[in-house]
């Protein structure tokens, strides 16, 4: 086995995996707190890809050309916008269904997902969109035709993902807000009795999840350069796979699952068959749900009457 190729696939997998992990956080937090699969989460990521392109275009119009300023302002814009989008979706499509049976929110979420896809298609057109390359340059090892490389963009992705996850972990573990989140997750009724505004906490969790999806959306879009209104579906399913792999409901699990899935996918497409990499990811999802539905770090759920 060629070590350079192996190293290259591992790097690609880590980069891919850290973006999966960021999106997976949105699935895992929402599932942990209200027990629903937010099917529209992938579309929030898709919207953030469009916001990246729009943000960059508007900033360029105002004559800003420093890449760091462009990236950070776009990221702030995308985060604010998608958090508001996430909170609005929760308020309109999920909150009225809090007491309905379990299938109702999922069906409603599929509806939201169709709405977002079609809305973006109608407003921005069905064609592929793109963003210019902002960060060039690569770190390379090996000889001219036999090497292993990390682009600076890839490094940025991993660093930003780590910072975002660290920040999230700090908020959840150390702040009053995070304590309210964890309390609501453990026992919503009890938390409410103790004076926590659980509706607000749930809305906030949707906002946080959407914000992290926006971080991933900006990073992925800058890295790959092109996207269309359909990118949310497959990426969303894969991020959900990551969340389930790590144990749905568990925050470290989401990141671990994301990185494992990214590595597995990239090694599979590098050494086995790149045409079937999506089949592999879906098969992995089906396999985990069947044989270990609680994932790697999750707690097994007990069925009670």
């Amino acid at each position: 086995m060629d070590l350079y190729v192996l190293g290259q696939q591992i790097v690609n997998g880590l980069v891919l995996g850290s973006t999966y992990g960021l999106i997976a956080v949105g699935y895992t937090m929402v599932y942990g707190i209200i027990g629903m699969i937010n099917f529209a989460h992938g579309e929030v990521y898709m919207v953030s890809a469009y916001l990246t392109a729009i943000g960059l275009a508007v900033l360029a119009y105002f004559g800003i050309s420093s890449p760091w300023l462009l990236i950070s302002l776009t990221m702030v814009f995308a985060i604010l916008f998608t958090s508001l989008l996430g909170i609005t979706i929760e308020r309109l499509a999920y909150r009225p269904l809090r007491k309905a049976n379990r299938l109702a929110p999922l069906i409603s979420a599929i509806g939201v997902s169709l709405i977002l896809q079609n809305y973006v298609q109608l407003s921005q057109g069905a064609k592929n969109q793109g963003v210019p390359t902002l960060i060039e340059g690569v770190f390379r090892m090996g000889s001219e035709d036999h090497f292993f490389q990390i682009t600076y963009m890839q490094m940025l992705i991993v660093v930003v993902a780590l910072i975002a996850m660290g920040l999230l972990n700090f908020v959840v573990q150390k702040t009053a807000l995070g304590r309210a989140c964890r309390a609501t997750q453990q026992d919503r009724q009890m938390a409410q009795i103790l004076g926590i505004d659980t509706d607000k906490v749930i809305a906030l969790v949707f906002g946080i999840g959407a914000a992290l999806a926006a971080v991933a959306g900006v990073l992925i879009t800058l890295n790959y350069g092109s996207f269309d209104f359909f990118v949310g579906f497959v990426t969303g399913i894969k991020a959900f796979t990551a969340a389930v792999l790590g144990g749905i409901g568990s925050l470290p699990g989401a990141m671990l699952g994301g990185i494992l899935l990214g590595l597995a996918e990239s090694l599979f497409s590098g050494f086995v068959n790149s045409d079937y990499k999506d089949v592999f990811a879906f098969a992995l999802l089906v396999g985990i749900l069947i044989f270990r539905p609680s994932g790697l770090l999750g707690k097994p759920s007990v069925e009670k009457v």
Partner: protein
Amino acid sequence: MNMSRPRLSKTLVLSAFAAVVALILTGPLSGLVLEGYDFKTRFSAPLQIAAFVLIVRFIAGLLPESWLAPRQKNEAAPRATRFKTWQLVLGGLLVYIALASLVLIASKYWLSVGILALIYILLGLGLNIVVGFAGLLDLGFVGFYAVGAYGYALGHQYLGLGFWAAIPLAAMLAGLFGMILGFPVLRMHGDYLAIVTLGFGEIIRLVLNNWIAFTGGPNGIDAPAPTFFGWEFKANATQGGVPFHEVWGLDYSSGMLDGFIFLVLLTVVALVIYAVTRLRGMPIGRAWEALREDEIACRSLGLNHVFTKLSAFAMGASIGGLAGVFFAASQGFVSPVSFSFFESALVLAIVVLGGLGSVTGVILAALFLTLMPEALREFSDYRILIFGFAMVLIMIWRPRGMIQQRRPFFTRAKG
């Protein structure tokens, strides 16, 4: 209407708030349209959307609150009027004959629209067994549709199967796939099941797309036109048979094939409707509905949940497979593009809109969803948007669908 002043002003404030949120959310996406790395402005669009939201929210605020309250509880619907068997048979026959005679007057275009509507009725009926009766949310239903369609096309290519042999075989093959899919997911329920079935459906589509040597990959594969006792519905015979119009001394018209498929499909749909209605009253149908309501209670009462769930999956899947055969036959061509997740969501929308478990509801919803875009051409771009909103709104206001079907239950005898 006697509306209190505080409520009116509150409604105004809330409407304004909703409009501002709508303006912020649609501002960048509708107001700034990407063109390459540049953009052009179109500020009228977000303003129009915000104004629309303002008006809708304001009107919703003026309506009596009881109208907007979700109807969650199981309203015991009034007892359906009981028809005698001969009345039902006669009525069914009359409807069947009326629809079948459409073949004589409808144009080729409307026949193909009719075929599409019937295919979606079949798909809706199939998924209704799994989701509506048995309560197992299946998001990969399109996989069975694909198995049916490809079963016909590939069966013809590799085994020389004809249309009539393909109907039962494809239905059985799809049923088998349903069982295979059903087995591993027996232990799961609710949303995990939904995601696993979604995964299966996508795997089927991706394999069809990537296994180029066997399925033709993204380029698709031709499906043969059906024949009737070896008579072909073409101007000149190509499959070694005799053209239908020559046997009967008719003038050739290109709509004959569609007319024929329409008639066969109509018959199949009628039979499936009959079978599904009968199944509901039979022990197996009751077991499906009981399992949906309370799995633990059913299992502790000795109900075989393995058989019950598998039979629902297999039954639904074979109906989906049947629909696939007709789809392939009417299009003359199948490719993986036709079997994306969107189709699954569309069929799910049909079942949900019609009312989970209601056969009449599913038929009406399927007709509505396939005929509406034809009738309202200018709205056809907004079709998916309308479906999406319909799915959300129905879940909120009428979780049991537009047609609230009567649940079979026992009432205590009076006296």
